[in-house]
């Protein structure tokens, strides 16, 4: 979601994005940054970004370069696969003042429920590195970590460590791993979820049966 920084809308820009994370973009280059400060009350309106290494970037309002701006990250509810586990990102239900992701409006937790602060490290795992369900599934079955989880889709995830399948954080059934690469899924309500979960297995090319 690309936003130009203009002097006319500097006040709105500050309200929407100060303190949030997103990408500082110029042409095809984009850097994950936190938008630290919007100077909107002076004649020289600027935005200050900082990246994960602490390097500060300054963007002046009304840049002639149309490709320069801020790509904010909307806190849309969704599971994300990591290297060997998955997270659920969602908006915190409250009145929101910020449009991009920040600690005040976004909850990030693993499938097993471990909550993380919103920071560069977790956002890089969620947005910079993309893993397919099949990749994370394969990795998590060989993982020695306490949590073994992966996302089947943006709405469904499996925790092998807890033997559960979830829809957006809500348990909808039981899961057992058979022969290290086959999922046996028993749904609480097969009529409600059967087709969706079978579709997920089919789309992700993960072997399994659904009852």
């Amino acid at each position, binding site marked *: 979601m690309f936003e130009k920084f203009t002097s006319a809308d500097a006040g709105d820009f500050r309200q929407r994005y100060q303190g949030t994370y997103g990408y500082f973009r110029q042409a095809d280059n984009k850097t994950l940054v936190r938008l630290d400060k919007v100077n909107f009350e002076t004649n020289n309106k600027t935005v200050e970004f900082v990246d994960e290494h602490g390097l500060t970037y300054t963007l002046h309002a009304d840049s002639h370069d149309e490709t320069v701006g801020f790509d904010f990250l909307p806190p849309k509810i969704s599971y994300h696969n990591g290297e060997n586990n998955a997270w659920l990102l969602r908006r915190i239900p*409250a009145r929101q003042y910020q*449009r991009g992701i920040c600690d005040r409006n976004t909850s990030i937790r693993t499938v097993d429920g471990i909550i993380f602060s919103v920071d560069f490290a977790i956002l890089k795992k969620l947005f910079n590195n993309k893993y397919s369900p099949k990749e994370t599934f394969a990795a998590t079955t060989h993982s020695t*970590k306490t*949590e073994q989880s992966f996302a089947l889709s943006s709405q469904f995830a499996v925790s092998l460590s807890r033997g559960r399948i979830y829809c957006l954080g809500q348990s909808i059934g039981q899961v057992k791993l058979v022969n290290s690469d086959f999922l046996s899924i028993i749904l609480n309500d097969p009529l409600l979820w059967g087709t*969706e979960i079978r579709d997920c297995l089919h789309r992700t090319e993960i072997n399994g049966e659904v009852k």
Partner: protein
Amino acid sequence: MKVVDVWKGVGTPKVRKYPLTAECTNPELVIGFELETESCIKLNARGYEELVNPCNFTVHTDGSLRGLSYEFISRPMRSDNALAALKDFFLLTQFTEENYSDRCSVHVHVNCTDITLEEVSSVALLYTVVEELLFEFVGGSRDTNIYCIPWNQCRAHYELVSNFLSDPSHVLRGWNKYTALNLIPLCTLGTVEFRQMHGTADINKLTTWVNIIGALFKYAKAVKLKDLIGSIKTLNTTSHYEMFFNEVLGGQLPYNEVYRQKLEEGVVLAKYSLVNYSENKRDKKSKEDLGDTRSNQSIYDELTAGLFPAAQNVGDIRILYNDDTVL
């Protein structure tokens, strides 16, 4: 039980007439508009008041807007009258897209005083199914606007039907005004407020919007909640989706691949909201089968003992258990 019977202070609206009508899906549905408008440079507030009063609109100030700006609020009218009045409103004021920045919105209030709590629940459930699709129609990245947050992003829909039917006032006390479909006015005006639409002078788009809303209410009144829940639960094939789409929104929007995907997502969200509504005994039984007896405390102990490398590597651990999980 009807809405007016639940919140005693809510009276039935005084519905204004308008001499003209426009074709629409649900002409009897009583609605009202709030049009946030900027750059109102041609007249002062009194001038605009005189200009738009014959269209059943009044003029108000709005602190969220910039410059010479007003909020134009219509009096309650039937949809066929309201759309005709809206068309005349734009003819008279000569507002164009220039008057509508991304700060502006069009809010549509729909009268619910004459419908039952079950019918309101049906509207809410239908809305859950089509919310993503409505945002797709509206466009303009409105789903990221902080003044009309989608239900699915803040889980407003979760267990809404059962909670609303058992204690509607409690639901409204915890509701957030800035959700895309705001239910709070039910207990004050007897309305629900659709907040998705961006500011626009495009009468065709606004007409379609009113027709979509009208279609939702029409379907919610025609189909019993129990039957609606039943059909949502069994919606799971492409042909079912298309049939459902055409039954609810037929003629308002074209059924295409984008809308099909949005509908599919919406159906999952609606089913998710109904998980505990349909809970059966299998969950308890299978939980016993798995011997899942771990407590929050045991998991907390495990984590704080440093046995969770993923968490240590990435960030702070603040709260340590998934409170959504039914144990």
